[in-house]
């Protein structure tokens, strides 16, 4: 964290990296929802944060007034050297219509329900292997010994990256998502090793094509044309960053919930048929991801005087706790039957990896509670949460109960 003033009032000076927000954002959002449905900040060069379901939905679906050119808030704005709209630096997440649909169509078959179903046995084997490694101990860390390895293992295989580089991938995720408040020059420097690594992987795949997403992206054609090298590079970085931290967070937060709610844990162990419904409630209640947009032109929107290049932080997790849409929104209801949550976003930028994420989360929770039907936090004060736009439990010391 950099030395910066702590937030005194989130309505006029919000900061998603403030320690109070990182530790527990939900009371902040609840307070904002009552008195100010769109919060403002001068930090990061200016930005807005709608906290209601209606506000978040409106912006998420409005590609006319907002651009996705950059979706991670930082102190800078995309420069002239960066790929301009509608393509952006990491298609399709950074793309606007009409290019967005083309870039998305390329990715979707690789992440379709059918493709993901085929991966499920491998995901399960990975979870079982991690649990075998943990073995029969009383004290374990469900974060650093389990949750953090699952999505990284899946994505590494999907992209066809070397098996021993997992620590590096987590470091990249940390740089991209948690270093957001570093000065722009430092950010550029921090990105250099990421660029070098991906360039090396692309070269390796050009020399040795194989059956993975990287080779697919290098060879796929749109109307007889291969993708621009920047497009391939951007989509690969997107897959790595968006595919690791997000699902890791969802798994860890769900296990944190079960460690602190023994009744829910017992129900899930005794009623395995509840799992699909419970997974949706985990996703609603602990939705890890917030996304950003940039305002295209000066305008009055949601009653706010927005300026060109202001950020909008799309608080999908805040929308998921809006009581005007979800009855008992602040309560985790493990068998909630109606659950139109926005954990994967809304509209054309719906998380392209949602089928994969949902399967990883379900399999990871299934295997964990099968192995350990009873557990609790061994040191609640030691639990930590990630910083920035992807929120999830990181350090999770558990005591396994007999």
């Amino acid at each position, binding site marked *: 964290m950099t030395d910066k003033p702590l937030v005194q009032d989130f309505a006029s000076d919000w900061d998603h990296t403030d320690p109070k927000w990182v530790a527990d954002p939900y009371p902040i959002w609840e307070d904002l929802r009552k008195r100010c449905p769109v919060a403002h900040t001068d930090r990061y060069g200016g930005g807005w944060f709608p906290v209601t379901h209606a506000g978040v939905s409106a912006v998420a679906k409005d590609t006319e007034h907002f651009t996705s050119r950059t979706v991670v808030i930082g102190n800078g704005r995309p420069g002239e050297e960066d790929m301009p709209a509608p393509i952006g630096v990491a298609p399709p997440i950074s793309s606007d219509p009409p290019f967005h649909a083309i870039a998305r169509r390329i990715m*979707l078959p690789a992440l379709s329900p059918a493709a993901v179903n085929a991966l499920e046995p491998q995901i399960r084997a990975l979870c079982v292997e991690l649990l075998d490694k943990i073995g029969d101990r009383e004290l374990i860390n469900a974060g650093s010994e389990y949750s953090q390895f699952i999505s990284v293992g899946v994505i590494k295989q999907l992209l066809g990256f070397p098996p021993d580089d997992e620590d590096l991938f987590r470091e990249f995720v940390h740089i991209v998502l948690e270093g957001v408040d570093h000065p722009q020059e430092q950010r550029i420097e921090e990105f250099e090793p990421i660029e070098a690594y991906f360039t090396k992987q692309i070269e390796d795949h050009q020399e040795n094509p194989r059956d993975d997403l990287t080779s697919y992206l290098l060879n796929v054609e749109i109307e007889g044309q291969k993708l621009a090298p920047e497009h391939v590079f951007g989509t690969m970085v997107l897959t790595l960053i968006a595919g690791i931290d997000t699902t890791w967070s969802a798994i860890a937060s769900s296990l944190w919930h079960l460690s602190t709610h023994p009744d829910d844990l017992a129900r899930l162990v005794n009623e395995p048929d509840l799992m699909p419904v419970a997974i949706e409630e985990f996703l609603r209640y602990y939705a890890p991801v917030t996304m950003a947009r940039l305002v295209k032109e000066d305008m009055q929107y949601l009653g706010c005087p927005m300026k060109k290049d202001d950020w909008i932080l799309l608080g999908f997790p805040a929308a998921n706790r809006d009581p005007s849409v979800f009855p008992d929104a602040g309560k985790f209801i493990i068998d909630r039957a109606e659950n139109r949550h*926005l954990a994967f976003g*809304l509209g054309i930028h719906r998380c392209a990896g949602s089928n994969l994420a949902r399967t990883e989360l379900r399999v990871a929770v299934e295997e964990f509670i099968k192995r350990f039907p009873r557990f609790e936090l061994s040191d609640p004060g030691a639990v930590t949460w990630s910083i920035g736009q992807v929120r999830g439990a990181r350090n999770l010391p558990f005591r396994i109960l007999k």
Partner: protein
Amino acid sequence: MKVRIDADLCQGQGRCFSIAPNIFGFDDLGNGVVLGDGELTDETIESARLAQSNCPEHAIFIEE
């Protein structure tokens, strides 16, 4: 009663075919599709309604 998915609204959130796999399937991009003619029976109407009430995009319509 008939169920249909508005293809312009559907974004492939994947809730319908998880909740009611006997009524909904998916295409190669993962977008929801209605299996068969979409005609609902006394046995299927309830799960069609449940899928409808879980679609974040409000893309499912049940009509007389």
